[in-house]
């Protein structure tokens, strides 16, 4: 139950700057996800919030309290570590109860709470085992139970589901989400699974090289990525060179495709980002010509890879149907759903549609 505010955070390891001047606001009770490629500094930032990393500059607040100098044990946080960090010399139950014992609850309540979370995480049958022989997924759930059971003000999770199978991952995702919402725990969640991020988050922050690229709702991140990095990192996207002509209100693609386009910026070279489902594909002549090189049937959808006349490859997704399907080597024509696409400036750093 606290909001988190970070101002001008700076992190260095020796001379190596990992995070420089990062600002962040996390609302009370929201599930905030840090998403980014490996090595971009997610764990580093999380550990700064937890108090385990030194802070080379900037200010960190929980609500209005500056926490830079506060002991980690006083911050009332729950943390799920990337490598689980299970206490190897304690049984599963003792692991889960550890935090409760520090809070000097009475024995009965400790047992009850621990039982509830062991059950929620589906590890009650291992309660009295030592953790060393449990699988990675089981250990991860101990770590989750241990962090959740204390109902902290702030929950920090570093890829908490990375080692679970697909089914368990979905179930645990729900459990985390439910507890988090019911208790109203402000949660910072680190992952590099974008689908998981989409499903669970109130807000997503996409990070690269220690810099936050965009902070927005999952929907916005997907539909209005703030730059090409975010567009390519979240979901699939085709990036094409093009040129927007303001006088004639026409957008020309490199491959020779033209379409009417109404935008409020000057004529310039642009990068056009088109998600695979933002194409309309048919055999009818007209539009961008391509040849089917590959088709992957995935049930609901079919993914096509096409080779355009200028040699570029694009990916197109179509809802599968019995009647309609395309053969390898077949000629097809693409139309672009212009209301959905995004346009970026030439170096890809700014979404032109957002800057107006």
């Amino acid at each position, binding site marked *: 139950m606290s909001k988190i505010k970070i101002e001008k955070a700076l992190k260095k390891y020796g001379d190596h700057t990992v995070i420089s001047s990062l600002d962040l606001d996390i609302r009370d009770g929201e599930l905030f996800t840090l998403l980014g490629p490996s090595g971009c500094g997610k764990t580093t930032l999380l550990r700064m919030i*937890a108090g*385990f990393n030194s802070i080379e500059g900037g200010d960190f607040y929980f609500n209005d309290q500056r926490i830079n100098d506060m002991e980690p044990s006083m911050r009332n946080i729950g943390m799920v570590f990337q490598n689980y960090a299970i206490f190897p010399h304690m049984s599963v139950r003792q692991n889960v109860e*550890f935090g409760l014992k520090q809070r000097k609850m009475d024995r009965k309540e400790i047992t009850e709470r621990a039982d509830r979370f062991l059950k929620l995480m589906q590890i009650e049958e291992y309660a009295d085992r030592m953790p060393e022989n449990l699988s990675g997924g089981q250990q991860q759930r101990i770590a989750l139970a241990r962090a959740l059971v204390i109902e902290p003000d702030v929950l920090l999770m570093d890829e908490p589901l990375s080692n679970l199978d697909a089914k368990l991952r979905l179930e645990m995702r729900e459990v985390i989400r439910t507890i988090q919402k019911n208790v109203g725990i402000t949660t910072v969640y680190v992952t590099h699974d974008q689908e998981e991020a989409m499903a669970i988050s109130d807000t997503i922050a996409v990070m690269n090289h220690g810099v936050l690229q965009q902070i927005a709702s999952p929907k916005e991140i997907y539909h209005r990525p703030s730059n090409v990095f975010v567009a390519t990192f979240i979901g699939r996207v085709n990036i094409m060179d093009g040129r927007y002509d303001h006088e004639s209100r026409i957008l020309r693609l490199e491959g020779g495709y033209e379409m009417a386009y109404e935008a409020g910026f000057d004529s310039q070279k642009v990068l056009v980002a088109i998600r695979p489902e933002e194409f309309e594909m048919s055999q009818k002549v007209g539009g961008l010509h391509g040849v089917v090189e590959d088709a992957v049937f995935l049930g609901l959808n079919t993914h096509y890879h096409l080779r355009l006349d200028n040699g570029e490859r694009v990916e197109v997704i179509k809802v599968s149907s019995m009647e309609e399907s395309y053969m390898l080597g077949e000629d097809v024509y693409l139309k672009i759903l212009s209301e959905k696409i995004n346009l970026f400036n030439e170096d890809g750093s700014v979404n032109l549609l957002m800057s107006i």
Partner: protein
Amino acid sequence: MKAFAKRRLDSWALITIILLLLYLVFMVYPVGNLLIQSVIDKATQTFSLDSFIKFFSKPYYLSTLFNSFKVSISATLLALLVGTPLAYFFTAYRIKGAKVLRILIIIASMSAPFIGAYSWILLLGRNGVLTQLIYSISGIMPPDIYGFTGILLVFTLQLFPLIFLYASGALKNVDHSLMEASENMGCIGIKRFVKVVLPLITPSLLAGALLVFMRALADFGTPMLIGEGYRTFPVLIFNEFLSEVGGDDSFAAAIAVVAILITTAVFLVQKIIARKKSFTMNALHPMTPKELKGIKKVFVYLFSYGVVGLAVMPQCYVIYTSFINTKGMVFQSGYSLDSYISAFETLGNSIQNTILIPGISLVIIILMAVLIAYLSVRRRNAATSLLDILSMIPYIVPGTVAGIALLSAFNSGIFGSGVLAISATMSIMVVALVIRRLPYTIRSSVAILSQIPISIEEAALSLGASKMKTFFKITIPMMASGIISGAILSWVTMISELSTAILLSTYKTQTLSVATYTEVIRGNYGVAAALSTILTVLTVISLLIFMKLSKGEDLSI
């Protein structure tokens, strides 16, 4: 850096300061005091290098240095020659009874060297049983055991187990595929051992060799007993110090300083070589012992059993003689427990001391080692780095020198003030043992702690446990098993320690090893044998407990 200023003032900072103070008082001060003494002329109280000049200008003194080097280098080479093939045989071939042999090797290495020397005198000395036997059979007197040969024999048999242990540890990390690869290329047998295996284990052999060399160089009891005219450096230090007490201690101090300089140099040279050659190995599939056939089998068995037999023979013979009726230096006919009875009558205290002094030391060592390891792994800063460096100094201070330094530092209290005048008490013996043994325990604790991910401690902190609580409830329990097995090894080396104990103990505080040594010197061979047997039993029991607890893990010495 505001964040840091505040953090540093936690309980760990206080512990750092206390530890630094302890080192200052019990190590920096005594060693510094020794250094100063060595360059001060007692009569005029002025700076003078006379003692050093005296040492380096007299062949009589210099020759001891030469002798020490000669015997230590020879012993190191021989130990390598014996220990390395033995380790290879044990790893590469299936040898019946290997497990028992291994235990015997460890036991042999853990006993006090001077007992080995004493026993070899009984066996091969002028009136030794073997000497007599050989003479009566062949009519020829076997070569003299005293002097260089005897010391070398005792050192080699005593110290090759160190090489064996280091080499075994390294061989465990040599992947089987490497052996097969070289076999594919037509490189087998001795050639493969020399070209492939040996280079891989060289770093470990170097580390082992350093240890052997240092021990040989610093050992005092062996040359004292079996050396006769062959005077080594520690013997010189001991004699000079004893004869100079109350007189010119500047000279004894100067010799001690020379000793420290030499060991420092050796230590540094080894560090440099080891750094150049170091690489990490990790075997996915260690070598599996192969079955042996024919003449090779005979040779391997003869070598393995022969070496181990020689190594444990002195111990066994001493145990045997402890049950013989004895009068002074002469063994009579018939067996009895008389030696034990008179041992217990005259020396009741020393058994208690042997348990009490190392016991107290052990508790202090464990506590300090864990704290220092934690500080230097988890809280690295200028102060803890200093602590780290200070804690390694005892590596290069030979036992006899440490004893002298402590004695002269605390004889009349710190700087002669009467404060901490502990020179005739049990405390000074505890201090000596702690200082000498601490670096080893610190090193193994550091190794254990580095294996534990820091996030486990962080997890405890995040769950609301304080730093101290985290340390005691999480860190210590996780380190416990490793520390306990290390502690038992420390214990074993401490109960048979002689070179400082002989200087520091009084009649009231004497230990079993000192008592044994004294009885040997006095010529009460029966009592000496009984005492030595008791010591051996203590050692073996401790080692068995160790093996039980460590479940076959590596010995780190």
